[in-house]
């Protein structure tokens, strides 16, 4: 089987493999998949960061779960942290202090868990952006996009649940806000709030319930969804960027075993290692400084973890609209930023692939990624949404910004209220223009080559800049990408003279399609490319002829 000596380990390995294969048939799977090809671009590893962070979370979380007491029963603290000695607090908080100060390595594990959680969400976010801007959500990967969206939402909830478990002043305030939001939901709010908290706030049921959600329900769901997510990637094979040798029908990269195993496995250790190193040198969530949660205290600078900052910002920026009528109160000031806006954003995000497919009418499979510049409207929508998200995010930090940049929180709030409406459309327009300009430059490069920076002066006195043709590899990249045209409504009668029926959404579809694709830069056709090549050759022949017959040699600066 191998060319190496069959030492005892190899013999034992062979025996083990034999044993397993006879019972599980693993060789059939291995023969197909050991050389499975994976493309090797760095931006394809962003999702891996999330996956490995999740594993780190599971491992560190298991450690914490062995010491944490999810109970709101009041106890008197007598552990190592002197500042809270003799203070009444919940068991949850007291056990968190014990983990931090009285369990060796406990603080490290707590910090690893929290840093990994932040990294998990950040990785999901950049991974989502990569998938969006390269159009990797197109057929056949729409389902995977949906799964990813669900993972994003669950991650946010899971993180919120996790940092609320220690029952410290900062996260307890966050729970209070969550309860106030739920309570304010129309019609069912008070019932839902009572159900969730087992009565009024804070009650004694919530931390234990949150614990089960955090260690069992959501992680189980996330694990299942990640498995489905990866299985789909495995089966459908990963997408790849256009380039030499890469087509819609192949996948170019490195084999699973040994290269990809080493790189991906190594990356897991890297992510784990970086997270632990972060936890060694940077403090996170120092709950002992906040103090135990009590509803009469609060700290300046109360923010949630970063991935919820946009929701907090939405709450801060929303004007105080509340409708009181017929004995009922509709708290739009709470309902809109905490339920309606996230609802719209997550729904739009989830439905985006279908919307775009509807606008293009493109039912093909896509395995080659788009360069963002080739889809200006999509890229513009993406940057516009990011701008909106970032503005809300900044809104959530307005008091920290005010103290650090010496500004007024009132002015920041008003400025952001205007900016969330004004800036995103502006960003859309600028992005789209930028993409179209880049497309024009690409077209130019294809037809005229790129500028080398070498100036030549011809004997006739003319200055020319020497252009060099793009390399074959780059030509492939620049030519890649479909140029869509807007869909038109077909109103031509068929052979029997019957006009096609007008479907209700046709007009809207045509308009959206035009919004997407009315302005596109066409790629040079093969004929145009050939012609451009001939033109370039003719030009250089003519210059060469001039040089041959010219009086003085060409010089760079025109003088001698």
């Amino acid at each position, binding site marked *: 089987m191998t060319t190496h000596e069959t030492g005892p380990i190899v013999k034992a390995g062979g025996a083990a493999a034999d044993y397993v294969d006879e019972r599980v048939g693993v060789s059939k799977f291995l023969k197909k998949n050991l050389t499975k090809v994976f493309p*090797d671009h*760095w*931006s*394809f*590893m962003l999702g*891996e*960061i999330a996956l490995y962070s999740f594993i780190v979370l599971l491992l560190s979380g298991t450690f914490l779960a062995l010491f944490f007491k999810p109970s709101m029963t009041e106890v008197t603290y007598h552990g190592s942290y*002197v*500042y*809270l000695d003799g*203070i009444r607090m919940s068991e949850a908080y007291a056990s968190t202090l014990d983990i*931090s*100060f009285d369990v060796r390595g406990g603080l490290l594990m707590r*910090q690893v868990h929290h*840093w990994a959680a*932040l*990294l998990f969400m*950040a*990785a999901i976010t*950049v991974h989502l952006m990569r998938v969006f801007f390269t159009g990797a959500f197109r057929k056949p990967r729409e389902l995977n996009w949906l799964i990813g969206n669900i993972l994003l939402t669950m991650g946010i909830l899971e993180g919120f649940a996790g940092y609320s478990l220690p029952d410290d*002043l*900062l996260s307890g305030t966050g729970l209070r806000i969550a309860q106030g939001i739920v309570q304010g939901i129309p019609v069912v709010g008070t019932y839902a709030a009572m159900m969730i908290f087992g009565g009024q706030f804070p009650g004694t049921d919530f931390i234990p319930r949150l614990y089960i959600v955090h260690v069992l329900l959501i992680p189980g769901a996330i694990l299942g969804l990640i498995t489905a997510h990866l299985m789909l990637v495995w089966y459908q094979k990963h997408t790849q960027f256009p380039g030499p040798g890469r087509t819609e029908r192949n996948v170019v990269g490195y084999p699973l075993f040994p290269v990809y195993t080493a*790189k991906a496995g*190594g*990356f897991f250790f*890297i992510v784990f290692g*970086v*997270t632990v190193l*972060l*936890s060694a*040198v*940077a*403090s*996170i*969530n*120092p709950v002992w*400084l*906040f*103090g135990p949660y009590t509803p009469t*205290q*609060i*700290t*300046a*600078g*109360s*923010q949630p*973890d*970063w991935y919820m*900052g946009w929701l907090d910002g939405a709450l801060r920026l929303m004007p105080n609209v509340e409708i009181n009528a017929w004995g009922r109160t509709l708290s739009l000031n709470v309902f809109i930023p905490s339920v309606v806006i996230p609802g719209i954003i997550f729904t739009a995000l989830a439905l985006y692939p279908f919307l775009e497919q509807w606008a293009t009418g493109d039912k093909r499979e896509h395995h080659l990624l788009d360069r963002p510049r080739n889809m200006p409207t999509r890229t513009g929508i993406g940057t516009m949404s990011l701008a909106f998200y970032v503005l809300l995010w900044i809104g959530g*930090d*307005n*008091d*920290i910004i*005010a*103290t650090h940049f*010496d500004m*007024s*929180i*009132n*002015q920041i709030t008003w400025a952001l209220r205007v900016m969330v409406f004004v800036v995103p459309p502006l960003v859309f327009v600028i992005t789209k223009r930028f993409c179209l300009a880049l497309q024009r430059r690409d077209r130019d490069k294809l037809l005229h080559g790129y500028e080398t920076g070498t100036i030549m002066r011809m004997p006739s006195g003319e200055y020319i800049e020497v252009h060099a043709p793009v390399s074959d590899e780059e030509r492939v990249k620049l030519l890649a990408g479909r140029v869509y045209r807007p869909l038109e409504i077909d109103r031509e009668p068929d052979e029997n003279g019957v006009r096609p029926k007008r479907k209700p959404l046709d007009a809207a579809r045509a308009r959206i399609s035009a919004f997407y694709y009315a302005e596109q830069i066409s790629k040079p056709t093969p004929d145009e490319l050939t012609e451009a090549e001939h033109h370039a050759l003719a030009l250089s022949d003519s210059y060469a002829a001039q040089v041959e017959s010219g009086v003085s040699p060409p010089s760079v600066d025109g003088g001698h």
Partner: protein
Amino acid sequence: MIGRSVRADTTPTPSSVSAKLSARRRHPFATALVLMVGLSVMGGLYSALTGAGTASAAATDGGPQQIAQGRELFLEGCASCHGLNAQGGSTAPTLIGVGAAAVDFQVGTGRMPLAAPSQQARRGPVSYTQEQISALAAYVASLAPGPAIPSAEELNYLNANLQEGGELFRTNCAQCHNFTGAGGALSSGQFAPSLKVATPKQIFEAMLTGPQAMPVFANSTVPVEEKQAIIRYITSIRSSPNPGGMSLGRLGPVSEGLFLWIVGLGAVTAIAVWIGAKSS
């Protein structure tokens, strides 16, 4: 007249050049140097002769001499905003009844004289010596009864209850100053400053007098023992170790999130780029 040399009114001849040159030669800095010497002499004579030295001898007695000195200083440095009789004006509140503690705090932290009238007063370089501050305080205290500068006994916080101090701090102070006193935002550009460098006396006085937007925490509602506990907590927690590593400002999730995106995600992404790069 000092500072000007008398120039000989002769046209220089080759023979007299070397002899007269030195008399006429002046260093470019000569004028400036002589001016400085002259001013220093004048200033020194002035301060020596106008009784600043004698003022320090009478600095702490609270007697009429100190009050008079305080009044002098007040008229020079404070009356333009606070009024000739400290009654206040359009830009500054009345100082009648604010007490010695308020003056000691405001001037002692450099908040007064106010650097930028339209903004909240902030800690800065102190413009007066301690004797002068005491004199100002004595003068203002003489106008009407008000909170006094805390005594050494009142400031003795070393035996105060540290844990109770924490509870009191989190109930009364953290909402503006942040959970460890890192500072926080108030409305309209105002802010509660960081408590990192405030001395125990300044903390006591601030609670007692309620400077600018800060409420007044009188001894009737926050007794001296509780103030001592709060001071003990503040002075201890602000220099407490950060067992988890760099504190990132003790500002909470905002700085932690920023750190993660820049350092954490940055490092991991950089390594991803390294993994994907072609090897040479």
